[in-house]
């Protein structure tokens, strides 16, 4: 047994539940008499809903297939060899489940080396090799093709990426070393760094060809046939493959520098993967692939044993899996159909909600408000947004006509809501106002209609308490911008029944939102954590720490924006309002900052001015601030803030605000954009020792978002 085979055998023993990919070798006669050809098909035996992956046994299978092809190549019985995938899927890379199981640096190193050892044989055969990217190709799937002499790609391919950096890895089976040597550093960095950090952006077939990753592009309908004809022509010498020269001069270094700039702007140095990948790409300038492969092995092993990757995989599983099966949601079969939606209020938020319901549910949506002018403005907003979509080509004229006709506005709730199944209010955030609105709605709406509130901090139970049928009231808390942030906190009031809740979850699914069930607790999940987090920052500022220090203290987390920039986005007035609500609920932990109140009172929209292009403390704000004389270091600030967050989450779990810590993380990722490398936040609090310091225990079981013990 070869060393590679032994290495993989050992790795396979660690991962008995691998979904094993076979590497079928089939022979065919190429057209034009070009000769006999061996074609390897990667196939895990399932349909396209279970994409082909590479675990250790899968790599061993490919290794064995290459053994066979290698012999045939030496014997001269084949003129070339190719590799392709099952229908719709080429291969989507390493099996993450296998990566999660790895406990030791050695084991991690073996996975990296195992992949390299197998894949690089494709570049060392006695005959040319061809990869035919027929369908989705990601990570190791892309990389196995990079080791081949030539590549073709299908125009119909929906997804092609090296997403490793997105998860917290580097493309470690040749991606970092080969890709820049194939298409140049700048393009390689756009694929490896920029796309990964840009919500894991996928390439389409034509882009793969235009970037120079593939040598030929064919349509999906007869992709493999045309690829094999092309192969025959390449082998015959009829078709010459010409690749553009790559710039190994200053352009290479400039590209790497640009890559670092992109990484800084996205993760602020807080996650190592992008930087490790850039280091390898920088060194790949020498063209020494083996050195690159060795660097990839080392980076992979380090990252696999690091908390950022484990958090990344955990976060990926949350948004891919847990988001699809919301914890605590009642059985889907209880849900009632929603064939008409009512929106109370026609302000900006209400209009945005109307647009969202309209686009996703495609049912009549009726807006009401207190005067005709507001109603007209709300409907006008939706109509204008529909025209924008039409203008951008996102919808066609027929669809625009349909949507335009579906949205209406009336003053009389009885007229608008008499046959509505789901009515959501987005009126002024004041309990008495909301109670009054719901009472009016209940008087005219059908008995089965769901009454939903988009309140961000008021009690859903209290809002329902004066109704005849409080069991049909649910909280339906969206996050701004409504069209972009996936999170929807669905709040169960004390009296909410299962059918209403199931209907709410059904609507959320159709809205394509990530629904998380929360208890009717003050400010629910995201706002409570963010307010505690911001409140603690505000506290240290109020006590005397300079704004700059407080802000810098948080940078190592790599959050999408600094706390005070976030406050500006939310609006200081809303931030103040939520802090007041929470202060009433939990006065011992939530303070109302006098400085924030002063900023709001002065009518300021934020703490910063951007005259220099960079955020700088607004001198007018600075003049308003009344600070104490306790000046903390960045580290002290960070500890204070993180301790507060850990305490709050611990209390929320005790209160049963959500089912598990995973739901908190899912909320932070999808509602606040907190990064994968933090895993939301509890994996980070666990690995930094904050959880144990504050609560005496970790939030998550070992192995869930960390190296298993």
């Amino acid at each position, binding site marked *: 047994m070869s060393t590679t085979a032994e290495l993989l055998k050992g790795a396979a023993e660690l991962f008995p539940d691998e979904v094993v990919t076979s590497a*079928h070798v089939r022979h065919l006669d190429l057209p034009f008499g070009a000769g006999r050809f061996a074609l390897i098909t990667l196939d895990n035996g399932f349909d396209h809903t279970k994409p082909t992956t590479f675990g250790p046994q899968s790599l061993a299978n490919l290794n064995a297939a290459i053994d066979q092809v290698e012999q045939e190549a030496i014997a001269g019985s084949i003129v070339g060899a190719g590799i392709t995938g099952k229908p719709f899927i080429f291969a989507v890379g390493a099996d993450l489940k296998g990566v999660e199981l790895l406990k030791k640096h050695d084991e991690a190193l073996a996975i990296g080396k195992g992949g390299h050892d197998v894949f690089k044989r494709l570049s060392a055969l006695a005959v040319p090799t061809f990869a035919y990217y027929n369908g989705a190709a990601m990570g190791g799937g892309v990389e196995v093709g990079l080791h081949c002499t030539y590549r073709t790609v299908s125009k119909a391919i929906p997804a092609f990426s090296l997403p490793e950096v997105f998860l917290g890895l580097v493309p470690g089976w040749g991606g970092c070393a080969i890709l820049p040597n194939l298409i140049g550093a700048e393009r390689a960095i756009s694929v490896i760094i920029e796309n990964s950090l840009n919500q894991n952006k996928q390439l389409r077939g034509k882009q793969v060809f235009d970037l120079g990753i593939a040598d030929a592009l064919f349509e999906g309908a007869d992709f493999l046939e045309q690829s094999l004809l092309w192969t025959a022509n390449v082998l015959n010498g009829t078709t010459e493959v010409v690749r553009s020269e790559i710039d190994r001069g200053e352009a290479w270094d400039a590209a790497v520098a640009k890559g670092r700039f992109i990484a800084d702007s996205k993760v602020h140095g807080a996650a190592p993967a992008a930087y490790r990948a850039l280091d390898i790409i920088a060194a790949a300038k020498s063209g020494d692939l083996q050195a690159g492969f060795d660097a990839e092995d080392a980076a992979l092993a380090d990252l696999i044993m690091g908390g950022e990757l484990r958090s990344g995989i955990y976060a990926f599983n949350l948004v891919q899996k847990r988001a699809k099966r919301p914890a605590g949601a009642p059985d889907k079969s209880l849900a009632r159909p929603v064939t008409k939606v009512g929106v109370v209020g026609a302000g900006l938020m209400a209009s945005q909600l109307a647009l969202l319901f309209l686009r996703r549910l495609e049912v009549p949506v009726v807006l009401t408000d207190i005067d005709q002018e507001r109603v007209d403005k709300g409907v006008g907003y939706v109509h204008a947004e529909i025209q924008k979509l039409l203008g951008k080509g996102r919808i066609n004229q027929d669809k625009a006509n349909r949507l335009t006709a579906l949205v209406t506005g009336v003053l009389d709730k009885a007229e608008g809501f008499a046959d509505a199944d789901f009515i959501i209010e987005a009126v002024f955030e004041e309990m008495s106002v909301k109670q009054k609105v719901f009472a009016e709605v209940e008087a005219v709406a059908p008995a089965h209609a769901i009454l939903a509130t988009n309140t961000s901090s008021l009690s859903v139970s209290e809002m329902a308490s004066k109704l005849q049928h409080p069991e049909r009231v649910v909280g339906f808390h969206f996050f701004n911008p409504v069209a972009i942030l996936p999170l929807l906190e669905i709040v169960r009031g004390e009296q909410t029944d299962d059918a209403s809740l199931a209907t709410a979850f059904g609507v959320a699914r159709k809205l394509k939102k990530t629904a998380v069930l929360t208890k009717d607790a003050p400010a629910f999940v995201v706002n409570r954590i963010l307010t505690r987090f911001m409140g603690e920052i505000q506290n240290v500022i109020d006590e005397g720490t300079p704004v700059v220090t407080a802000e810098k203290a948080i940078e190592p987390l790599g959050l999408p924006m600094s706390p005070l920039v976030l406050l500006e986005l939310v609006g200081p007035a809303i931030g103040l309002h939520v802090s007041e609500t929470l202060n009433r609920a939990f006065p011992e932990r939530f303070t109302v900052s006098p400085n924030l109140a002063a900023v709001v009172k002065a009518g300021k929209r934020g703490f910063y001015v951007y005259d220099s292009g960079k955020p700088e403390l607004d001198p007018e704000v600075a003049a308003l601030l009344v600070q104490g004389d306790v000046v903390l270091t960045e580290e002290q600030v960070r500890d204070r803030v993180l301790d507060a967050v850990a305490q709050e989450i611990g209390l929320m779990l005790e209160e049963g605000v959500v089912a598990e810590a995973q739901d908190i993380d899912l909320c932070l990722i999808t509602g606040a954009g907190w990064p994968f490398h933090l895993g939301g936040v509890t994996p980070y609090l666990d690995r930094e020792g904050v959880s144990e310091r504050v609560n005496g225990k970790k939030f998550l079981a070992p192995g869930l978002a960390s190296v298993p013990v």
Partner: protein
Amino acid sequence: MPRTVRDVVFVDGVRTPFGKAGPKGIYHETRADDLVVKAIRELLRRNPDLDPKKIDEVAIAATTQIGDQGLTLGRTAGILAGLPQSVPGYSIDRMCAGALTAVTAVAGGVAFGAYDVALAGGVEHMGRHPMGEGVDPNPRFVSEKLVDESALFMGMTAENLHDRYPTITKLRADEYAVRSQEKAAKAYADGKIQQDLVPISVRNTNAEVGETGWGLVTTDEPMRPGTTLENLSGLKTPFRTHGRVTAGNAAGLNDGATAAIIASEDFARENNLPVKMRLVSYSFAGVEPEVMGYGPIPATEKALAQAGLTIDDIGLFEVNEAFAVQVLAFLEHYGIADDDARVNQYGGAIAFGHPLASSGVRLMTQLARQFEEQPHVRYGLTTMCVGFGMGATVIWENPNFNAEGDSK
């Protein structure tokens, strides 16, 4: 409004390699619609001067129009092949003469002026859709003796045809079959067939059938080169004890697809498209369903009469070989020798296979190649028998005809 009948030409035709139906066949895991889609795409690739937007119709035949052969194939195959949405399409069924009827139907439209150019073809995946799948014959056929009970079983109708032509013995049928295999093998060796084949990628996930994974089909699977009389003599006669029809002297059960471009001659010339054959006449005729193999004779009589030609004017014959006896009955009727060099020069369905509704265009594609090679021939015909007692004949003129040569 004055109207002129326009000349109609066969521009080009291609086909997939034909496969054997059944779990071991090359196309067992391949969809029928994909076969015809790939044929259409190859046709368009070969004729880049044909602007797809100008295609006025797509007529695709299939006998069993359900599943992957259903859903109005002419339309869906057009969309799947990437034709513009503005190009319409429909499905056709005349059993074995499906593709032939697709050609004549669109040719009629071209002659009339309804179309300038159209695609016509057919597909039959007899592995996925065995003959008779889902049929529900009206009981009156039997109760009122409208047709003989053997009419639905093609092998039995072939035995019946042997009865009608007692001089056509099993030996003659077998000898004919051996020659078909020999001619097909020679045509392959001479590269006559491959030039009009579309390679098809095929997947196999069953290790019992052979190597698993993706492969590429570039040749016809049913061919049995080297077949001898001895090989054939011992075969069973499944349709009648002590009968004459065997698997060796009949076409098999097959999978495959064909496609052709039919245009007005003016359109073809204006658009720089090849003109491989010029349509002279076509005709269909009905006969007793229980001797459906007799059908080509009256169909040819009608087509010759329309054209003002006699059988002696025909220099090349492409006769579908559903059964050897059916070809021999045709030849006997016209006093043509069993081994006449004008008949099925490249071999026929006994060797290549006969995926029912696709075969008509195969005959045309082969005749077109023979026209190119033999400019001394002016007229040729394609003919086939059709289930339920029909025959179909199309007479073609060779645009390469050179009057200097022998006028046959």
